[in-house]
């Protein structure tokens, strides 16, 4: 009986302590800028989330080292989306209501980003979604307060697709992750086939969470016509598993694979042996653009023990997103939402570690930027630098690949 | 007239035959005992009669109606009630509630869902009547599991009575009771037998021979004898198979 009493007492004290620690009202005086970082640290995209948080941390620390913005230090308040849109919406509410953040950024998962942006728009809080690619984020679910830092699927596919048609072949087979991101990727690919006169040999719809691709690979092996390109819009863990099995079934030797997007952590997981194909890349740490080398060096200094030793695309987008958001507040001279939005819309910056400047498009809030075309290096090419997985074989300017106003007829909400 | 009749009932579990070719008639208004050694298939027979098991072969007729394969609750509503060998009462609720539930089932009020149980006067009154009848009124608010074993036995039967059965099947009502209590239960059975037909599974030959009008002897799943106490006592086969030197 005594033991039980102790346990309950302990629990009660712990509870009270938690409440006291956590529920203290936020200091009323505006002495700091509160940046809500909302990105996954559990669930399917936990590692991408960690990567983007590293980028965000770097941007915030660099700005704070220079004295912050508007004379105030920037404080990050981090919440986990659990890669679950319902949880993401809840956490966004928490950041807005309780922590009273001035703006939010983060994302990775398009579905989480859409859920967050819905909440943010209603509360009139700026939200930068980093590292999402679904066209819906700046299309069907575009909002006045919502900005997308990374390129959209459309941009990625229109970078890699025409290149594949020209250089590899016109007969394509699709492997599509069977959810909105995957299907929108394949839909854009079909546009490309139509535009450039290619043929589609079929499509395999792969359920999310598929661990075993053998049946699909066998199916491809038995196609009556051998495809020139197997165009994959498969992501995350499933992509790692797929690369594994493509290698296992020896398909990497006799087939060409194209990928709508390649996240660096996925290749890092499977290693150089199984890294294959041609793909679109958002950013790469070996780009020959101004500022890249310095950025990589700063990253290595700041995160000597990071699981991935170089900054990759998620980290880059996190960094750029956080930096531009804070800079815009500085330009606007206030933390109010509407002036910052106005300071962002149509803004162009060139210290973006890419070849051409990036523009924040005013009518759909898409960051228009260079998209790169990459090819997987052979394992022996990695001798000198084990992190250098990709060969960058070309790039497309943002305006050449982004959707036009006709293709994406969005109407943002009025300013509030 | 037979109130209950089985025709060639058979039940197997895997390779074991629990009941084979059982043909019995239960006389209305009488007390019938079923005896037999452990594992003779007595409880299985009860389970078949009450619809808990479906026989592999054969039929069960009740009041001239074929009830084979009917679900338990339907058979119970037809007027067959049962008490169990292992105590089978609701342990976590008061004694009164046990009886009340049974009366509630009898009055078909189970699906009323917005009126408090205390507002159903006819149920509550009837339940108190029954408690009075079986002599458990004094403990009506006690949580059932704290009752004495004998009281639990009585309660078990009381629950069965609440559904106003025409036919009551009792599975070893005296098992585990001290002799004084056995006497109490025996008298109780005698008393209620005036109102209904009773079938008992019983080991205590003393009880069997004093209360029974008819005795059915089961051995290895088959009926080996059937008749009045005197006939059974005189039956050599029964003596050999079961009674041994007891009587």
């Amino acid at each position: 009986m005594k033991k039980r009493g102790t346990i309950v007492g302990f629990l009660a004290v712990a509870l009270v302590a938690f409440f006291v620690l956590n529920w203290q009202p936020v200091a009323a005086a505006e002495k700091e800028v509160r940046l809500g970082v909302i990105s996954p640290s559990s669930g399917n995209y936990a590692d991408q989330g960690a990567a983007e948080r590293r980028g965000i941390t770097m941007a915030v620390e660099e700005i704070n080292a220079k004295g912050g913005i508007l004379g105030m230090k920037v404080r990050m308040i981090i919440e986990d989306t659990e890669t679950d849109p319902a949880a993401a919406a809840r956490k966004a509410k928490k950041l807005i209501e309780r922590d009273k953040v001035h703006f939010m950024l983060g994302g990775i998962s398009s579905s989480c980003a859409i859920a967050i942006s819905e909440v943010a728009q209603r509360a009139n809080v700026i939200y930068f979604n980093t590292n999402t690619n679904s066209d819906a984020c700046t299309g069907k679910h575009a909002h006045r307060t919502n900005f997308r830092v990374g390129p959209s699927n459309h941009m990625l596919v229109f970078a890699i697709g025409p290149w594949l048609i020209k250089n590899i072949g016109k007969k394509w087979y699709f492997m599509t992750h069977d959810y909105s991101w995957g299907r929108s990727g394949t839909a854009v690919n079909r546009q490309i086939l139509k535009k450039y006169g290619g043929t589609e040999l079929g499509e395999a719809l792969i359920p999310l969470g598929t661990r075993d691709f053998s049946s699909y690979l066998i199916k491809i092996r038995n196609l009556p016509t051998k495809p020139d390109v197997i165009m994959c819009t498969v992501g995350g863990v499933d992509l790692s598993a797929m690369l594994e099995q493509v290698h296992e079934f020896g398909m990497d030797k006799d087939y060409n694979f194209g990928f709508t997007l390649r996240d660096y952590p996925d290749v890092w997981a499977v290693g150089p042996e199984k890294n294959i194909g041609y793909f679109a890349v958002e950013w790469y740490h070996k780009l020959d653009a101004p500022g890249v080398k310095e950025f990589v060096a700063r990253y290595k200094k700041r995160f000597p023990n990071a699981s991935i030793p170089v900054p990759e695309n998620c980290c880059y987008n996190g960094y750029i997103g956080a930096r531009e958001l804070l800079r815009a507040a500085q330009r606007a001279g206030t933390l109010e939402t509407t002036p910052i939005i106005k300071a962002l819309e149509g803004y162009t910056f060139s210290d973006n570690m890419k070849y051409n400047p990036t523009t924040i498009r005013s009518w759909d809030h898409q960051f228009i930027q260079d998209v790169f075309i990459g090819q997987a290096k052979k394992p022996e090419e990695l001798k000198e630098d084990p992190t250098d997985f990709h060969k960058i074989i070309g790039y497309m300017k943002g305006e050449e690949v982004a959707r036009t106003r006709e293709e994406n007829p969005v109407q943002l909400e009025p300013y509030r | 007239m037979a109130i209950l009749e089985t025709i060639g009932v058979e039940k197997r579990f895997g390779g074991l035959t629990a009941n084979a070719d059982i043909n019995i008639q239960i006389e209305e208004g009488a007390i019938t005992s079923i005896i037999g050694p452990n594992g003779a298939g007595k409880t299985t027979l009860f389970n078949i009669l009450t619809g808990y098991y479906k026989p592999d072969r054969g039929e069960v007729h009740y009041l001239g109606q074929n009830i084979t394969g009917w679900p338990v609750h339907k058979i119970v509503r037809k007027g067959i009630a049962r008490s169990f060998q292992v105590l089978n009462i609701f342990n976590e609720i008061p004694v009164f509630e046990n009886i009340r539930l049974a009366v509630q089932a009898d009055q078909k009020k189970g699906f009323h869902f917005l009126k408090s149980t205390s507002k159903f006067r006819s149920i509550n009154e009837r339940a108190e009547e029954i408690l009075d009848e079986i002599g458990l009124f004094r403990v009506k608010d006690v949580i059932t599991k704290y009752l004495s074993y004998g009281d639990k036995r009585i309660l078990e039967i009381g629950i069965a009575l609440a559904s106003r059965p025409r036919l009551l099947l009792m599975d070893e009502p005296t098992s585990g009771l001290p002799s004084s209590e056995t006497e109490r239960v025996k008298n109780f059975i005698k008393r209620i037998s005036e109102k209904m037909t009773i079938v008992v599974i019983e080991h205590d030959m003393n009880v069997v021979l004093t209360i029974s009008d008819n005795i059915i002897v089961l051995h290895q799943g088959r009926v080996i004898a059937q008749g009045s106490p005197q006939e059974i006592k005189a039956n050599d086969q029964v003596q050999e198979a079961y009674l041994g030197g007891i009587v």
Partner: protein
Amino acid sequence: MAEFLSQLFNGLVLGLLFGVMALGFMMILGVMEVINFAHGALFALGAYFALTLQKVLGYWLALLISPLIVGVVGLVIEWTAVRRVYQKDPLFGLLMTFGLAMALEEVIRIVWGKIGYSIAAPKFVAGPVAIGFLWYSKYRLFMALLSLILLTAVWLFLEKTPYGAIIKAGVSDSEMVLALGKDLKRLRTLVFGFGASLAGIAGVIAGPMWSLKPTMGTDVLMPSFVVVVIGGIGSFWGAVIGGLIVGLSKSMSVLVWPRLSDLMMYFIMAIVLLLRPRGIMGEKSLLEQ
């Protein structure tokens, strides 16, 4: 036709692995009446231990030792926590293993990090092989062989050893084991450890194919459930047949309608439930009704 046969073959190979996975799950379910949610996490642990061990000891020793360590983890879990919920409301066992699964997954994140890993298959089974029309992965053939050996070993253990007889009795009725006068407590601990190491070994085998992620356990848990529901609780052959059915449903639905490949097993499960509620090989037990 060639594709049909290839898919059929592939389905069977996958089915064997699901069988191994589900067998451990089912033994724990049958003997302890505990739905072991942590089975997936143990599967993942097997793969992660192998990842670390093979760097030091090489593949073969990793294949051998990793399941043993997982088995020990299973024993510890049983000994400290799970044994306290036997014979209680099944909800407790369910929640307990659910919590353990979460905690173990997070432990993997803490120890090995959030990023994915790849285990290299041993050299002699790396790459593809062509057998007539069938172009197949050598590693999977190796895996099929391994699974077959495992299944045979488990079968021999269940059929030919006294412990097997007790476990089988326990599967249908734990009271019977008590009646046999055997030490139920120890039996349960051992079965839990054994089931855990079966999950571990499935993890080691699957690692080189499916690549490693902290969430990998969650993803393979559901097929085990479905296998057990289809095959029926308490039957060795139920687990094997259920595994094969799930494997085949995954590969064959790719031929017909790939979108269904995940849903298919649930549909099959629903049909089995309609026609034979206790599963194909399941015996009627006190668990139902």
